[in-house]
């Protein structure tokens, strides 16, 4: 299930935020670089793109459709690395 993202403006920035929930949390920038990906019970607030979903296939589809990638700047959990990039 894809979680709702709350959006508001703060200091001229559009902030994307999800309520605390256990799910895959995916943060990526407009270039497609993944900044954060993990499956945790957290709340996350970012001015970058935010996608939150509970199933692996939803995240995989998001990664594929947006041509998302990672590099040494990305913070990705070991489990997510195996699930989505091996």
């Amino acid at each position: 299930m894809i979680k709702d993202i709350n959006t508001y403006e703060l200091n001229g920035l559009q902030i994307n935020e999800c309520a605390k929930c256990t799910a895959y949390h995916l943060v990526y920038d407009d270039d497609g670089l993944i900044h954060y990906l993990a499956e945790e019970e957290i709340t996350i607030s970012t001015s970058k793109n935010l996608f939150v979903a509970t199933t692996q296939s939803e995240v995989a589809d998001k990664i594929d459709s947006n041509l998302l990638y990672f590099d040494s700047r990305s913070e990705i959990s070991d489990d997510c690395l195996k699930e989505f990039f091996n």
Partner: protein
Amino acid sequence: MGETSGISIRLANNYSRPVRVEVLGNNASNMSQIGADTSYEWDLSSETFGGVDTIAIEVRKTGEVAYETLFTALTDLSIGGCAKTLSTLNIGYFEAQGNIIYALNKDLEYGEIELRLGTYNPTNTLEAAYNFAVPVGSVLRNETYPTQSLFNTSFSGAVDNAVNNTNALSWIQTYGIRTLFLLNGVATNDGGASVVLTTSSPKSASLQPIFVDSDGLVTQGYSYTPSGGATGGCIVFPTGNATEVTAITLTGMNTDILYYDNQVWPNLTTIVYNSNAGDLTSAGGMLDQLTGLNTFNYYNNGVRTISSGFTTPEINAVNLSTLNLDGPAVIPASTFTTNTDFNLGTSSVNNLVVESYNNAYNNFSLAVTNNEVQHLYQFNDNMVVGSAFNTKYENKQDTFATGQLIITNGSGLTFDDLATPIKCNGWFRVRMNISGLTDFPPIAELNQLENTGTAFAINLLLNSNALPVSVVNQVLIDLDSITTGYTGYSGTINLSGQTPSAPPSGAGATAKTNLIGKGFTLITD
């Protein structure tokens, strides 16, 4: 009787070389060459004089059957020196030209010239090896080999075999004891043990390293598999050095790190000890003379306790840039008895991995290069972040733009100094997570770009620890405070996954909102 008007002698030398004659000499003298009817030549062109200290020659009166052997000390190790020395034996004049020694005689007949090596004195050789391989003042000497006899127990078999099966003694006398490189001590090697030397260009076959162990001569070349049950080994260098060797990889051995001499290994850049059963310490300079060494990899083959005083690893090689104390999977733990014995030395290391060293006081002794790629500490339980850390990286720059400082996947991580505000700049990522952290110092500076720009960037990951709400709040408040006045902001601050859950509150929650508004990504419980 009246005086003569003088004696006129005309001498003609029919040889193409000088010939010594005694004018008006006593033809009964052994030195006399009067009437010589036989010319002798000995070609010494292949002689290297390695280890030679005596010259001998066979000689007999003409007509006799048996030779006598006369010998004397040889100190001038040259062809000319041999000729001069033979001439002192009172059996004729010996001349040298090029690589040939000549003699003329009639009354004496010469046989073989023999250059003799010095006599093997095991006591002297092992003492030299002990003082060389385990220098006075080194931790290995203090802790593992405090006496000559202990050293001999480990290595005498290999040294004896080196002398008995090779020309090691000759090379030792020519090049010094460094011509022997000792490999391993008592106890058998693990299955599949090997030593592999990587070369830039191999030497000719007869000059390549010779591997010898307690079972005897093994092989000559650039790889070695210990024979079954071998308990000690060594490499013998016929040329006194391994200038062609760029890397040495020891796998499954039971060897301590003995002294590496830069004259022997001037081009050695890489040392690898895989699954080693010996101990790891370079304290006292075992590797520090290696000016070419840039990469050192080591992991041990089993759980061990590091006794008090066994400073580990303390490598101070001046050009060391990669220090990797890791192996495949999670390696067996080494636990310090005294936590300050953990000492990384002072080299300028850009790539660092320290894995499975428990109870270590990490005082961040490595020099700052500004080009750190990764300093990773993982699976180290009860590590103490030493007080030197708090301001260690105050002036660090971010020459390598994604350099990361990581302490992760341990338990019981603590800070020695929780009072002095940390100044930790120049890192793209500072990650101290999954480590059981319960407290964190105040933050004064924590900016990747502090010393190189006007913006503020940091990825601070303190997730999956045991930080209480009060510490989470303080981290957020400090970060909000120190991020005032910069021209731009980026990064992720992850304080999630605390046990128990620690959502920011009060001023901490306000600081979180402020940080989000500046452009940081915030992740919290």
